[in-house]
């Protein structure tokens, strides 16, 4: 977009070198939030998908309502709700004052978890009905049918979409900075507020995220190839 000369003249990446230790601290927290969030979202996805195929109509309805609400509302607003609205709940609010990093991670878990429920449910439905019937004919109970026959196949079908959701969660970790959490993006903004120079830091941070996303994408493609049933 801009002539390289103009960019080089206007930008001073020496700033980034001075900021490196602080950015590294932020990046460690970003990874921590991403890993915790991914595990949490996967747990929500598995529990929710199980509820959505359960024989109990109430469990199915509750899981469907959860899925539709949390995937059709912005994760940023969910984070704001958990951080600022939950503590105002009459009676129990003062027990619900969460540290910012917990509220932020929980917001990501709810949104990305709701998407996981939908992905895993679709994966289970995509396994041909004959597989379940064959498993039942072999005398497997409902749980064993899921464990040995349906889930292993559904997991493979769901893997590309789950991978995309992990990447989306990773990118959304930047939202935690909006409530004062010092992740990579939060630290970058903190430095910018002190030195009042921003382009170099946003470019650096942006490139770090793009590289991580590319690495995650490659890792998931390799995993898919490894797990593929030839």
């Amino acid at each position, binding site marked *: 977009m801009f002539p390289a000369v103009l960019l080089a003249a206007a930008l001073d990446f020496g700033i980034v070198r001075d900021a490196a230790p602080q950015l590294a601290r932020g990046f460690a927290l970003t990874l921590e939030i991403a890993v915790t969030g991914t595990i949490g979202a996967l747990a929500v996805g598995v529990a929710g998908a199980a509820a959505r195929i359960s024989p109990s109509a109430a469990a199915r309805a509750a899981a469907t309502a959860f899925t539709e609400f949390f995937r059709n509302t*912005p994760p940023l607003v969910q984070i704001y709700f958990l951080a600022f609205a939950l503590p105002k709940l009459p009676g129990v609010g003062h027990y619900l004052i969460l540290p910012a990093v917990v509220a932020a991670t929980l917001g990501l878990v709810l949104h990305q978890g709701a998407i996981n429920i939908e992905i895993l449910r679709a994966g289970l439905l995509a396994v041909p009905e004959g597989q379940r019937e064959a498993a039942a004919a072999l005398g497997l109970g409902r749980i064993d049918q899921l464990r040995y026959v349906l889930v292993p196949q559904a997991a493979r079908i769901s893997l590309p979409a789950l991978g995309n959701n992990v990447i989306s969660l990773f990118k959304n970790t930047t939202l935690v900075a909006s409530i004062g959490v010092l992740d990579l993006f939060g630290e970058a903004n903190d430095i910018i507020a002190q030195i009042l120079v921003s382009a170099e830091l946003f470019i650096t941070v*942006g490139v770090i995220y793009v590289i991580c996303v590319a690495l995650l994408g490659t890792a998931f493609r390799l995993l898919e190839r490894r797990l593929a049933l030839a």
Partner: protein
Amino acid sequence: MSSYLTALPALVRGLGTTFAVALASMALAVAFGFIAGTLRSVLPKALDLPLLGIIEFLRGIPLLVLMYFLFFGLPQLGIHTTNNAAAIAALALYAGALGSEIVRGAIVSIPMGQTEAAAALGLGTFSILRLVVIPQAIRRMLPPFVALFALIVESSSLAALIDVTDLLQAARQNVERDPDIALPIYLTVLVAYFIVNYPVSLASQRLEKKLA
């Protein structure tokens, strides 16, 4: 509670801004998506590579980082924007990159025989796309583009963080004035986004089933 009621008109105005930002971003994203996606489906590999690089970059960078760069970073390079323009530009670039994948995917999904038949009738590359391939591909683009709009509405909430007075920002301003109304205000905002986005998601799913 009365303070909650006095905040409602501001929330409604904020929702209006959210719609305006989302619609402008969507229009630009569709245009960008069509141009980039069509180009990517016809360009030879060597020329396609830089375009692919730009699109992968836009898909990989977190939207918030892109938005902050456009709003806070660009002035340093002598390019000044308003907060609304920066928000719309960031959303349009991000959604446009996703849109280009939708367009390219739909175009390459049309069987080669269609292109070959049109070429045999003497049509040029541009006419083949315009008269034969794109009209068929549009049906396949519709459900993902509708879903993309829901994603844009949802993602437009990030504009509040660069002071665009959208729905979330209206809520933030009112909660700042009176923290005691945080619960009803943020609940209202969540429900408002849900009421907008749920029918859009449903429409996308219905279309997908209908066109499948």
